[in-house]
């Protein structure tokens, strides 16, 4: 089923957190205190009943354990691997309060969900046909989670995806030491296994099909378009070879064999999680000198502290208070980046500059917003390209709902899943209300 080349770059990575053996899982599961109104559940965006699924591991009800997870989060398998559990469920485990190592919830979740995948378990069936049709724009976790939930309620779904591969950043963006692209695609197939989801790839919204057409042909539209292309810096030397966006580069190592021959020094610009993933991936692919350059101080990085700590352990150099001024090149290819030194207020310090040599410069300073595609649509409000929605994923247009990165500005897979699911519930509710209204008249 995999459309991915076996030689793609990501295959050299091994799991940073390998799966549990049965003994390890049992030992850890039996440590869980089975808290009531548990803080770990409160910290999970999808509200998985964590103590319950762990108890079911302990009682050898593994299928039930997986059902508990998937019932709340159909992407429970990948979230087990990619969620920043340190700042979510695990970070809130009550054991932290008594300085006892917290329960390794992510690893237990992986144990239960992997077992379900290996057995080929299926848990959910499509509801009876409602006669309603929903268009889902974008084929990432938000749309897929929404489609799954809508299918459980019997609504027909059509996913429109610009790329050839489904899964969005779950497929092309997850750090390969957490999950590889083939596993993400396997999960996409598994989610679509509920049946009744039409998938149209290679379709660009606003080019191949207009929003007006979608609103005309479907009873509701869910927008889960994610983010746009990497933002680049318009600096002198910007057209030199060897300068590119980090998200674009990660997608390449995930799905293809990246050309890294001759690259000895790489500089990644940015201080967020994409920047940290990128430097770790570069080191993992054998680049000897990898630096992360960020405008602010180390403590101001928006990336997770635990991830950055790992990057440092792996030999990444951090350069802080550095503002790119220009790319330096030779023979049309980049050879370095010149930075201004910034003070604590992020103001340039006169006369202080810094040059980092680099054969590859990757920019992880954010991505463009796709909300503009809908900017002209009635009832849609944008805030710097982000679609404004309420807690249920409703926009100002009663037929349009949204979730995932295009609405939240760029968060985790688990947030996209939660928002997709909540929007699906709101769509179902809206259909129900429309139906009731119809009967009343």
């Amino acid at each position, binding site marked *: 089923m995999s459309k991915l080349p076996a030689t793609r770059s990501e295959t050299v990575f091994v799991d940073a957190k390998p799966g549990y053996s*049965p*003994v390890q899982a049992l030992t850890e599961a039996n440590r869980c205190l*089975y808290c009531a109104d548990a803080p770990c559940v409160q910290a999970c965006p999808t509200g998985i009943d964590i103590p319950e699924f762990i*108890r079911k591991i302990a009682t050898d009800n593994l*299928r*039930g354990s997986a059902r508990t997870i998937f019932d709340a989060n159909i992407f429970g398998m990948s979230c087990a691997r990619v969620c920043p559990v340190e700042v979510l469920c695990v970070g809130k485990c009550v054991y932290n309060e008594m300085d006892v190592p917290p329960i390794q919830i992510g690893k237990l979740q992986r144990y239960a969900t992997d077992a379900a995948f290996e057995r080929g378990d299926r848990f959910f*069936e499509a509801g009876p046909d409602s006669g309603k049709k929903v268009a889902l724009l974008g084929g990432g976790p938000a749309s897929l989670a929404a489609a799954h939930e809508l299918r459980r309620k019997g609504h027909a779904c059509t996913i429109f995806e610009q790329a050839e591969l489904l899964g969005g950043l779950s497929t092309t963006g997850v750090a390969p030491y957490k999950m590889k692209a083939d596993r993400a695609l396997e999960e996409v197939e598994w989610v679509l296994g509920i049946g009744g989801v039409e998938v149209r790839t290679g379709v660009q919204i606003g080019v191949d099909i207009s929003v007006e057409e979608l609103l005309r042909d479907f009873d509701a539209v869910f927008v889960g378009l994610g983010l746009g292309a990497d933002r680049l810096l318009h600096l002198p030397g910007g057209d030199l070879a060897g300068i590119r966006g980090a998200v674009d580069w990660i997608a390449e190592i995930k799905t293809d064999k990246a050309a890294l021959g001759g690259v000895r020094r790489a500089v990644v610009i940015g201080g967020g999680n994409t920047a940290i993933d990128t430097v770790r991936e570069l080191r993992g692919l054998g680049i000897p000198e990898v630096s992360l350059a960020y405008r602010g101080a180390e403590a101001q990085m928006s990336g997770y502290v635990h991830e950055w700590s790992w990057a440092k352990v792996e030999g990444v150099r951090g350069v802080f208070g550095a503002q790119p001024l220009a790319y330096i090149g030779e023979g049309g290819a980049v050879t370095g980046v010149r930075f201004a030194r910034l003070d604590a207020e992020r103001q340039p310090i006169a006369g202080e500059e810094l040059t980092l040599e680099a054969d590859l410069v990757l920019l992880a300073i954010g991505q463009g917003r796709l909300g503009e595609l809908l900017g002209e649509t009635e009832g849609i409000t944008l805030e710097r390209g982000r679609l404004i929605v309420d807690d249920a994923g409703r926009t100002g247009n009663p037929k349009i709902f949204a979730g995932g990165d295009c609405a939240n500005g760029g968060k985790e897979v688990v947030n996209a899943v939660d928002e997709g699911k909540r929007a699906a519930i709101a769509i179902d509710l809206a259909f129900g209300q429309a139906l009731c209204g119809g009967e009343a008249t």
Partner: protein
Amino acid sequence: MSTIVSPDLTANCAGIITPNPFWLASAPPTNSGDQIMRAFDAGWGGAVWKTLGQPIQNVSSRFGGLHYRGTRGIGFNNIELITDRPVETNLREIAEVKRRYPKHGVIVSLMVESRDEWQDLIKRSIDAGADGLELNFGCPHGMCERGMGSAVGQEPKLNETITSWAAEFSTIPVLVKLTPNVDNIVPHGLAAQRGGADGVSLINTIKSVIGIDIDNFVPLPKVDGRSTNGGYCGPAVKPIALHMVSSLGRAPEFNLPISGIGGISNWRDAVEFILLGSSSVQVCTEVMLRGYRVVEDMIEGLTEYMRRQGFANLGEMVGRAVPNLSEWGDLDLNHETVAKINPTSCIGCQACVVACHDGAHQCIHPAEDKSVRVPVVDESECVGCNLCEIVCPVPGCITMEEVDNGFAPASWNQHAEEGLTLRPKKGVHT
């Protein structure tokens, strides 16, 4: 799309029909209508109401826990008595629960003294809508000092007499709850049967002292510097309960349905009780420690088990393990097993070596080569006792493998009565 047919979990215990076999035992979790309705919402199929009788006054504290190597509450005891709430209040709530949950089972536990009191309370319980009655002949503390509870359960004649009153007065199924504080449970089950009971439930709690405050020389749980014996329950009592349930399940002259009780903490425990002849199971301690929510896993695990085994309904599995219990004298003495250690999964803790040397028959030894941590089994001396497999921390590392020794099966009884040949003994070290 194929739809998997779910096994039918409907339970019928002595004519009390509930959506599943999971009942709450008569205890603090069934003290009030509010609690029982929340329990039914969580998935419990039935509830045995906390014993009605003359409302009592309780002590504080009331409970004690047995903790073992870092695990809290493997055993539990209590010195609480029957309900401390007015009979009228309980009956009003019973009626309300039945009105709101007509398909769930409400079994009312009763404990009074005179024939008239039994008649009165039975009538009022039936009027309130109870699906069944449970006569509490089991409570081993406090109430027995007043001639009730286990004082009745330990005396077959008394048991039979009071049971016959209940059978006479009741139009709904009557269960007799038996005490384990007897040397042989069978005569007590038979007394209930003679008295006309529709079923029995067992075990009630076991007389116990849960522990001692060794700094102040006071047994636990403490009541102003003193204590008393309490009723022991929780996971640690399950083997005793299984034995008593199976004793009745095996007794040819006993033919009443059984509601199994004693340390049931998860679906697997419940399956064990059902396989030994219980047509419903009752749970208390696990709920006291972790809440009504534990039933979700019990229902799901039982369903999955039945699906795996191909059981379409509970009736197909009740008592399935009973035929495989027999007297020791009928076990095959020529059946021979020896321990095998899987060298690739062995972690070299040598827990089996010390256990075999000190606790069994000195046949597992450290390897001669001191750099090798995997022990060696002397199969010529291994008696196949299982101790090594029990202490081994690695699942599946030590297995007991059958040996074909060429001897035809022969039990002790066959040897003694028919002169069948027994194989030579092992591990005797003469």
